């Protein structure tokens, strides 16, 4: 099991608010290698919060999060960073490619903190293969500003895969793309899941995209149910 959520809850006390807002209620979830699941739900239903907790970017107010059987609550910031770098690949709604770097450099950014020397050594070759697979190999020297939104988002997918993670977390990956690009990206993610046996959790509004995953969950008023 890659990751396991055991009865996690989360609530926020936003600035100015008098009462607290429950975002997640007693959610339990287990993700195994090769799993592909999507989470759908209305805006503000807590999808991104759930994804952030899965990605160790946020902690639940209650409940336990375990990665590979170990509770992340016992880890310090450095260890959590290592877990993210080794095991998790993030794809954000916006590509968040760094403007100061060209495409290949952006792809290789996650290899900087990577401790695995062999992984580090083979990073460039891997990056080229991945870029080839997403059709961006001829644009490796271009800056993010010179690429289209779809190209940037595909590059972001490659960046998420560069350290060969066990789990890809995608937060509205097609939210900023046109329909055609969104369709292509969805296909790409599905292929990656299948070919590379990488578990994938995707938060999306798009039912078409959600359907490309094996299982769909619905998050509504903090409760996670099968869709």
């Amino acid at each position, binding site marked *: 099991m890659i990751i396991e959520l055991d009865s996690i809850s989360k609530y*926020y*006390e*936003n*600035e*100015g*608010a008098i009462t607290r807002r429950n975002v997640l209620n007693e959610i339990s979830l287990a993700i195994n290698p090769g799993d592909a699941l999507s989470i759908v739900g209305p805006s503000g239903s807590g999808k991104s919060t759930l994804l*952030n907790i899965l*990605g160790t*970017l*946020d902690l639940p107010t209650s409940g336990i999060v375990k990665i590979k059987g170990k509770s992340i609550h016992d880890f310090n*910031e*450095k260890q959590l*960073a*290592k*877990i*993210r*770098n*080794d095991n*998790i690949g*993030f794809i*954000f709604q916006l590509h*968040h490619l*760094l*403007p*100061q*770097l060209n495409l*290949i*450099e952006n792809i*290789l*950014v*996650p*290899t*900087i*903190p*990577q401790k695995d020397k062999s992984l580090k050594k083979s*990073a460039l070759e891997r990056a080229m293969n991945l870029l080839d697979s997403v059709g961006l190999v001829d644009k490796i020297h271009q800056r993010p500003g010179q690429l289209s939104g779809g190209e940037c988002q595909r590059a972001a997918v490659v*960046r998420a895969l560069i*350290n060969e993670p066990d789990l890809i977390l995608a937060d509205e990956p097609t939210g900023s793309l046109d329909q055609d690009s969104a369709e292509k990206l969805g296909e790409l993610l599905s292929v990656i899941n299948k070919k590379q046996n990488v578990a994938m959790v995707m938060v999306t509004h798009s039912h078409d995209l959600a359907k490309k995953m094996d299982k769909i969950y619905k998050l509504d008023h903090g409760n996670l149910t099968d869709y």
Partner: protein
Amino acid sequence: MTIRNFIIKSFWHFRKQHLAVLAGTLISTAVLTGALIVGDSVKFSLRQIVDAQLGNIKFAMQTGDRFVRSELANDISKDLNIATSPILQLQGITINTESKSRINKTQIYGIDQSFWKLSNKIMPELSGDEVIISDNVAQKLNLKINDEILLRVENANIIPLNAPFTKESDPSVSFRVIIKAIAHDENLGRFGLKNIQSAPYNIFISHDYLSKKLDLHGLANIIITSDNKEQNLNVDDLNYSLSKVWQLEDANIVIQELDDIGKFEILSSRIFIDQPISKSLKNPEIPNETILTYLVNSIRFNEKETPYSFVTAASTLFFPNDMRKNEIIINEWLASDLNVSVNDTIEIDYFIIGPLRTLEEKTKEFVIKDIIPTQGNIANKSLMPLFHGLSDAGSCSDWETGIPIDLERIRDKDEKYWDDYKGTPKAFISIQTGLNLWQNRYGSYTAIRVDQNNTDLDDFKKEILNKLNPNNLNLSFTPVQKDGIRAASGGVDFGELFLSMSFFVIVAGILLTVLIYSLNTESRTVETGVLSGLGFSKKQIIQIRFSENIITAIFGGFAGVFIGILYNYGIMLALNTVWQNIVRTNMLNVYIRSSTLFIGALGGIVIALFAIYFVTIKKLKQPIIGLIRDSSLYTQKVIKIRNNINKLVALTSILIVIVLVSYSLVASVDQNAGLMLSAGGIFLISCISVINLIFNKTRQNLHHSQPDFTQFAFKNAAKNKGRSIAIIALLALGTFTIIITGANRKTFYGSENIRQSGTGGFLFWSETTLPILYNLNSEDGKSKFSLDNEVDLENVDFIQLHELNGDDASCLNLNQVQKPKILGVVPEELNKRNAFSFVKLMKGIDENKPWLELNKSHEKNVIPAFADQTVITWGLMKEVGDTLIYLNENGENIYLVLIGGLNASIFQGNILIADNEFMKHFPTVSGSKTMLIDGPLENKDKIAELLNTYLQDYGIDITPASERLSQFYSVTNTYLTVFMFLGGLGVIIGTFGLGIVLMRNILERRSEIALLMAVGFSKKKIFKLIFIENIYLLLLGTGIGICAAIIGILPSLISPSFSIPVSFVLLLVLLVLFSGVLWIYFPVRNAIKSGLISSLRNE
């Protein structure tokens, strides 16, 4: 991809942002380095001045009021194989008779050619009336080579001028001289043994010529020496050599043989044998006679009187052992004149001569024990001391005694006695009685007689010399060069001073760095979040940020060093010109040490990196999600804690301010000013905290109505709270600094005549080149200077002060002073006027009558003293309660305990002790050269005019007391000007920061502005909106600064003697506001007018 590549790429990509950070680093480094170089430069320049003053001179012996043989220098030279030179140094007045211009307080140096050997260049040999003048004399009096000048030189004498029965003589000797050469700095033109940076006015004249003019043949009062070849000569070597080669003449001792009575007689050429000498010679193992012969005014019996007779007091060996203290032996001539016999009681009238030749006539009764022959082995004229003007007088009518002689009282028989027996004493008393009556500060005995016992005169002289120690007469060498260097390097540290004065600029530079870096970091918040999301740890992110900015900081640091050098040149130029009041010299040169540059660069870099580290850490404390979304996602708990801390800071600081202000207003304590200044500073902090809270509330407040312009603008300011508060803080701090500095400028505005002010309410401070030997308050004293007939001087009081020459410890001297000038004051005179005020008094001192504390007796040689608090703190670097050690004229240590610090006064630079203590320890200081003059204010000009006229030949400089004080104030004011200038620079940097923030805000709010335009806001309205928003920050900042400053200067504001230069302060505040408005107006106008609109259209 490596971390290094990532850093380099990021650095290059964000180079424009880095340039702005570089600007901040550059400013703080430049100011830091500049200030440090100022310190080095001032120290180096002072060291150069020491070199110019001393050339190759390493040691000097200054004999004070005594004189030694010039040949002594030669003897020491031979003994130690070093270069020496004897100097006869006196004060004088130099007059350009053509232009009538003059310089009082010229140093006249009688030198021979050996003097120039101690400089690197040889000057022409002087003969006769030729002189070499220093170039500042040439400049001031507009003189050139071959011009003729008039010198009026202090008429010095071997005999202390105020010693009893010293004949009156002209105070000065005048003669014309021809200028043979002009001595510049490189050939000892600046020569002087005082540790001060200002150049003395020097005249060098032939030693032979000067000593001939003053009747001081072959004498010197300074001996200077070089080092030996091995460069290892020390003071002990020199003092040992001095004790080996000195002669009795150097101690002013004369020994003569009295063969008829088989004795040697030891006399002093100073008339009274100095106490250290008599103490050394009164060896109980050697039978000796001690003699004190005194001139009495009259010896009376019933109606009969014998005028002006010598009476000798002698030790028991000389007279019968059973001589009682009220018994007297008289000679037959006197017995006959008064018609008295044994057991009759006679009266003797005599003068006691006090300071400034004040005479007090006293009477003593004696019972006649015996009558002896008028002349014999015991009673003869050898007992009369060598009173010049008396012992060499042909008749009684020729007497010049220094006391009033009524010639009408002198009878023919008295003249005959003088013809027959000269000054043979007419009466004899016991030595103990004589000492009780006539012992004075110049000595106890006029002669000591010792049995010859078949001893050769030369052997006896050697024996006597062996008993004496030059050190006991305060004759010793000092390492003048070493002391000079120490004083030059130990004085006010201009590096520290300028660092503290530049503090605000440095803070402004740091704040600017922080502000700009914060803006940069904010613009890269998402990047930080993404890196966190991709598995970079906080440490790695800090490492990346740090490494990226190290390049900027290092470059900024090194570039800042070069700007710092330029900044230093600017400061040094200002110090040599417009700020010369501080340094009193134009000889300051820039001196750059590589270590200083390195320290400056390192300091600037470290400061910048610390700021960067601080901001990065602060940013990384935000949740990662917030970073990725570029929004603050602090939990309510964190926000609550922060708000609570804010409230706590605000409430606590307001409470502290209230407590401090109330305490300061209710209690009259010395530290009021300090407390209120702290209150002002804390008030500033409380205001910032309150503003922070208001901003928080404004952000949270929900308006249900249409927001007006002000609310809208305030909301916008609150949105970027950190930036807004940084700007407010910067402006508030700057305004606070400027007002505090401006308001503390020293001014009078009518308070100068108040007794408690720094003038003591006195009209004038006057200094003369030549000592005034008489009490100018007495009729006799006034008549000596023809002041007795001037009606305008009738109600004028002269407070004449004795002074021991020393270094100027005022703020006009940059050197660290070890032994400032001592002034002997009469405490009662100042007490009765309740003059001056004290900043600090030692515990146990009577606060109501502090001056009288100077009279209180302490342990032996422990003397209470006052000084200006500024002198104590800055000149001496000491505190009230500390002790200064001097050598008195007996070669003993005296301990001056600083029992109080005066508020800024005209005494600045001096140490004040009671006059009676002064005269006890420095008896040979003759006359007074410093006077405080008290009189009716309405006659001020007339008094000055009269004194200038009558005392012109004494080289009088009459300075209105307020003017003297304002000279010292001008130093303080110049410092404040510098501080204000640098503070102003800081404010300009602050307003520059405001401009940067503003431009950044506009860029970030392009979409908001576009929206406003879309909904129908005109350019003018948008301009107004942004302008108001930023004017708020400006007004808040300056307003808080003003309020805090008002609290800070509250004690001064409510003090009756304080007047704030309102217009000056107002001008400064307006300047700050004006500068701020400019920095707001132009960026907003430009943005609205041009670039912004087109960029919006493009988007």
